């Protein structure tokens, strides 16, 4: 297996001791098949135990290790050294406050996730004893893609709107609202519309599409937002233009 000496420029910031962030250079020998996370772990184990970053699964499913790699939001466990011939610059995800080094504070995302009510809402619940809600494979496909979100928040780092206006609910949370709206078992769209179909919600999105480009699991939040805009416009037409409010 091929080895290569990797040059890393890593953002460092410790609120206990620093007034502002700086970059630290590390030189570390790596296998060519490794990912950026492996290189960071080798730095921590052999060069500098004070470097801090989050990680766990090493298979792009837990969503812990989001960071900027050469300026792009990436999962460090799924970013291969073989695609980076030169120096690799590693920084915390933009648009979130930095706690320390590569660790950011996702509080705003966590709060927004809760606001869109990402759970099944039923007017009447069926008792467990009556078995499952029937759902055909076709009905499942209508929302499955949007249920794949790993909450890594790369899309928030990529979204120019979120960078400008922090009240924007943002791609991942809105895509999850759409996921439940599209689920044949759910009856909560009206409740979610109060949060979603607002200027903080889908109408803030200018359809740049950066969210979908960076999504490591191909959720395509941009398409979810477009579909929600169309559905909301149709609501408006029904309410204002059709006789009897479309009822």
């Amino acid at each position: 297996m091929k080895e290569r000496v990797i040059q890393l420029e890593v953002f460092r910031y410790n609120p206990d001791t620093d007034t502002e962030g700086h970059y630290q250079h590390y030189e570390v020998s790596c296998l060519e098949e490794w990912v950026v996370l492996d290189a960071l772990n080798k730095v921590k184990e052999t060069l500098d135990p004070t470097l801090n970053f989050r990680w766990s699964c090493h298979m792009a499913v837990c969503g812990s290790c989001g960071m900027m790699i050469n300026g792009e939001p990436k999962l460090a466990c799924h970013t291969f050294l073989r695609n980076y011939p030169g120096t690799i610059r590693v920084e915390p995800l933009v648009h979130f406050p930095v706690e320390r080094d590569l660790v950011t504070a996702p509080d705003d995302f966590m709060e927004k996730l809760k606001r869109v009510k990402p759970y099944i809402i039923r007017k009447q619940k069926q008792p467990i004893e009556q078995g499952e809600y029937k759902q055909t494979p076709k009905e499942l496909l209508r929302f499955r893609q949007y249920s794949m979100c790993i909450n890594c928040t790369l899309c928030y780092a990529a979204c120019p709107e979120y960078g400008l206006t922090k009240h924007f609910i943002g791609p991942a949370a809105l895509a999850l609202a759409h996921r439940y709206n599209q689920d044949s078992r759910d009856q909560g769209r009206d409740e979610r519309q109060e949060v979603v179909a607002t200027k903080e919600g889908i109408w803030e999105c200018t359809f740049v599409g950066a969210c979908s480009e960076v999504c490591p699991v191909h959720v395509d939040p941009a398409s979810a937002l477009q579909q929600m805009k169309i559905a909301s416009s149709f609501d408006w037409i029904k309410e204002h233009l059709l006789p009897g409010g479309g009822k």
Partner: protein
Amino acid sequence: METIQTDVAIIGAGGAGLRAAIALAETDPKLRIALISKVYPMRSHTCAAEGGAAGVIKPDDSFDTHFDDTVGGGDWLSDQDCVEYFVHEAPKELLQLEHWGCPWNREPDGSVAVRPFGGMKKKRTWFAADKSGFHILHTLFQTSLQFDSIKRYDEYFALDLLVDDGRCQGLTAMDMRSGQIRQFHAKAVIIAGGGAGRMFPFTTNGAIKTGDGMAMAYRAGAPLKDMEFVQYHPTGLPNTGSLLTEACRGEGGILVNKNGRRYLQDYGMGPETPVGQPQLKTMELGPRDRVSQAYWHELQKGTTVTTPWGECVLLDMRHLGEKKINERLPLVRELAESYLGVDIVKDPVPIRPVVHYMMGGISTNTQAATPLPGLFAAGECACVSLNGANRLGSNSLVELLVFGKRAALSAIEHIGKAPAANTAALNACADQTQQHIRELFSRTDGTESVAGLRKEMMTTMEEHAGIYRTEAGLKEAVARIHELRNRYHRVTLTDKTNVYNTDLFQTLELGSMLDCAEAVTVGALARKESRGAHQRLDFPERDDKNFLRHTMVYHQGADAPRIDYLDVVITKSQPGVRDYSGDHK
């Protein structure tokens, strides 16, 4: 030190912790619930489970069959009252998840689909493609968001349990963002902190799985049960250890050696079944312990395949075709392609057994209660004795639901009769933990590094506590782990600052893993038989006369732990022969 008053404190916010929290909130909306985790809930390792969750749902299946598969799969070390409770609760819990929105795969008529899994006589594994654990975790987490009484303490690192008057009454935890230690006074505590696979170098387990919950209970006096039973999953990617789900074989993938032989037929799991027509409970659908052990024998014979990442066998799924692979195993295809450069549609993928799951853990009964009053446990960190000596794939995702809920209900019962707390005594207990952390920060003369000790621990465990074990090797392991535990007290922190100090957290995690490793190795040395995942070359037979018992390991501070035994609960299935030779007889 700030004190947080709560009714129930839950340590760990993965599948079991979230299920417990929801059960508490639903049963009694007035309860104060503190959900404490060193990671944000959706980072918990439940997310990495792939294949699915077993529960009797189809007309051709029965509770008795699920019971028999589980008890036989566990080589009769399961407590049968526990298994009985589990198989009856399993479908209810899976339906509950369905009602909460879990995107289970479906049959054309809209009912849930099930797939075959290793060691199971019927198709009963519910699945959401090959991301079942991910969907279970996110369904639970998102469902939990509607309950305001669940107060989350994300990125709080639990340190020690508060024990007074012989009862567990809370814990101390560090707010990782500030470095502040807080104490939680709770009428009941539920540990749902996951397994400890990271004590081994080659594992499917994420970085967070360091046995903190197990070690915390162990230090507080609760015994660890059956820790010597460590499950190797037969099919891990040889470089990263990433799991390729058992569903690869459930869908029809085959295992071959360098000569192209389906070698499982040579280890009591034959005769060979037609390629692409998997038959339940035989060949590639044998149980994990047997399939992993077969690899070891192939290695001895020299019939494995030499790869840049070590000796492997081949998992061949080409005959499934691209369509089925994309529909049923998309994650597997992506993992093999990106990390190993193998497209499973076109080529067999080299794999080898990888440490995956701890059958052992904090000793609990069927009510999810530990012997320490006020302390409950569920999920991988607990040993409720469902899985016995070998867990069947797709039982653990259900286990964390069934016993997460059960722990919550038991905690509520306990709260009703818990006497008032002696606050001064709890404060004194919390102060001890603070002192311990201060001492760690002030230590300057240390000669040991976390990375160094961790590596030695992993090497020891891999060499001597792997798939096959011997007296000599285990004696060496026990001595080495004991030595490492002594040297651990000479670790000096490089980083002495307060905010998100992973040098500190990795040090604490190493301490947890060493405690767990001690219990694994002493239990393995004392168990002079071969059963399920515990195989002794010097004692190759199962010994029901002496070892149809659970190993109970008690922490004794710096001294060697005390070992005791507890009889297995047998209700209706007497120990018999595990037969995975298919329907040919």
